[in-house]
């Protein structure tokens, strides 16, 4: 709720802006931005204010690893003034589409704007694409996006910059809040077990150990080895809770819970986390900050709540 008012205030504070520039703007003067995931779209809509009209192709509950573009999506992309996507192989099935579109309009993989040495990789050397969970890294990605917006509409550069600064201030607050909550979890309980390896950056930023049942991508089918390994971990570390994700079939996690129960360890389902997708548009969890906060609170309750 507070975020809502904040956003409303932000928008109101922007004030009316003079007529849009002639370059690359839509008929109503606003820049038409199309993104893949909402984690990009929503912050950009805040930063851009009423100077942008933002759409995201993937809605709540959609798995970007598996997503395939439809003709409607292509049309949306073609009608856009600028396109942002995450990159780093998150939208694995859409790369060709971006290549094509990139010939005729500006396309930016915001995740790839982050310096490589700050990125995480797994044992096989694959890059972890879930960078939005590291608030600092995400700020860099959003900054890169903002620069592109400024290029498209130089008259609004100052406007964008102001909004960005204000938004980033909120992000810093969010980071502090998260760090505080996570650090209140006893050390031995700081183990986050989820359906797939989406929370690597989250764990790194907030000093949590993170284990995903599946690997970095949901394209692989879960194996018995994955399940058993996770159960061993739960039993050994006496983890109180595991988490499902909104965009993933919970069956595998449920099998883990039941398997642990057979071994005498009562693991609770700590709740649903937003990993690759955010909540419904118009809700708190539909915003980047709201989504992040939901995750933090859910994790905190499940792990820190005394047992």
């Amino acid at each position, binding site marked *: 709720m507070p975020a809502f008012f904040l956003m409303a205030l932000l928008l109101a504070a922007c004030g009316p802006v003079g007529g849009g520039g002639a370059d690359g703007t839509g008929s109503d003067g606003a820049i038409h931005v199309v993104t893949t995931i909402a984690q990009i779209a929503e912050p950009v809509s805040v930063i851009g204010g009423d100077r942008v009209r933002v759409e995201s192709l993937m809605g*709540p509950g959609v798995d970007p690893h598996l997503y*395939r573009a439809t003709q409607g999506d292509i049309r949306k992309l073609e009608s856009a003034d600028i396109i942002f996507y995450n990159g780093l192989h998150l939208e694995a099935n859409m790369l060709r589409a971006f290549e094509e579109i990139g010939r005729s309009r500006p396309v930016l993989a915001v995740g790839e704007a982050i310096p490589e040495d700050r990125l995480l990789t797994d044992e096989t050397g694959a890059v972890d694409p879930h960078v939005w969970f590291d608030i600092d890294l995400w700020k860099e990605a959003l900054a890169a996006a903002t620069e592109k917006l400024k290029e498209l509409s130089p008259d609004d550069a100052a406007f964008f910059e102001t909004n960005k600064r204000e938004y980033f201030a909120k992000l810093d607050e969010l980071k502090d809040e998260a760090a505080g909550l996570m650090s209140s979890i006893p050390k031995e309980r700081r183990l986050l077990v989820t359906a797939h390896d989406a929370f690597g950056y989250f764990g790194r930023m907030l000093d949590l150990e993170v284990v995903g049942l599946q690997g970095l991508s949901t394209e692989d089918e879960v194996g018995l080895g994955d399940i058993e390994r996770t159960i061993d971990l739960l039993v050994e570390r006496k983890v109180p809770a595991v988490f499902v994700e909104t965009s993933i079939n919970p069956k595998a996690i449920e099998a883990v819970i039941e398997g642990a129960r057979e071994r005498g360890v009562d693991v609770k389902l700590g709740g649903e986390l937003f990993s690759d997708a955010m*909540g419904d548009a118009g809700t708190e969890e539909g915003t980047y900050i709201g989504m992040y906060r939901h995750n933090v609170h859910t994790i905190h309750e499940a792990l820190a709540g005394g047992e």
Partner: protein
Amino acid sequence: MTGLSHNAQWVLASALMLGAAAGTVGCFAYWKRQSLMGDALAHAALPGVVVGYALLGFKSLPVMLAGAAASALLGALAVAAIRAHSRIKEDTAMGIILSVFIGLGIMLLAIVNRMPGGGKSGLDSFIFGQAAAMVRQDMLVMTAAAVVVLLVVLISFKEWKLYLFDPAFARGLGLSGRLMEAAWMTLLVAVIVIGIQAVGVILMAALLIIPPVSARSWTNAFGRMLALSALFGGGAGAVGTWISTLGDGWPTGPFIVIAAAGMFLVSLLFGVRKGLLVTAMLRRRQMRRLRTERAGDVRRDAFAEGEALP
């Protein structure tokens, strides 16, 4: 079973039971010359699953399974209608239904993905399945399915044999063709629906099609072929599961298919009745016999007059 975790035991038992049930039902499909039907219906079930979700707005397994069953039955009716009212052959009709329905299912999935509201997760898993995530309840359901199939087969064994061999004559004798067809369709759809929510469409098709073909190479008796089909299906489930426990992160579903395929290969080559090896050996023996006889003929003709040997 020692050394296998609880989860592995559940998965193994579930896969075994499901494989046995699918192998048996697949044997019927084989003799109705409708092997592809299982594949077609498994694919046809997908739109029903999605609709089942979309109508409610949230995931409810019974509703989605009911949707799957309804959709699969619709597919079966469509195949029958195409055959009845056009010149299109049955396997072509099944191919059409398979493609159309799965296309419809994927399209509906795409639409549903754009609808507001979360919880759509897992609709995709009906395609590939998550065999490794089966738990005790799955084991109970699969076992029940296998028992039901077994009962149906045992109780009406000779009726099935007659119906599959000569349905026209069967009708003449008074065997209700409609009842047999309905029973068969019910069994098939039930096994498919139970199977795809756990192991997905592709694995179900494999379990329905491969075991009967493997069994054929080993026997010339219908009853024994049914039993062997069940054995190979269950065996593939169990062996595939066990193999998938050996490696880290090895997915169970694909290994079950590989196990089934391996059994097929062995059957093809070494099957006692129709295996390639046996056929080759028999042929060689016949040729050798012929050669000796011919040699004998030549000698005999040299001595006697016109006493040609068979």
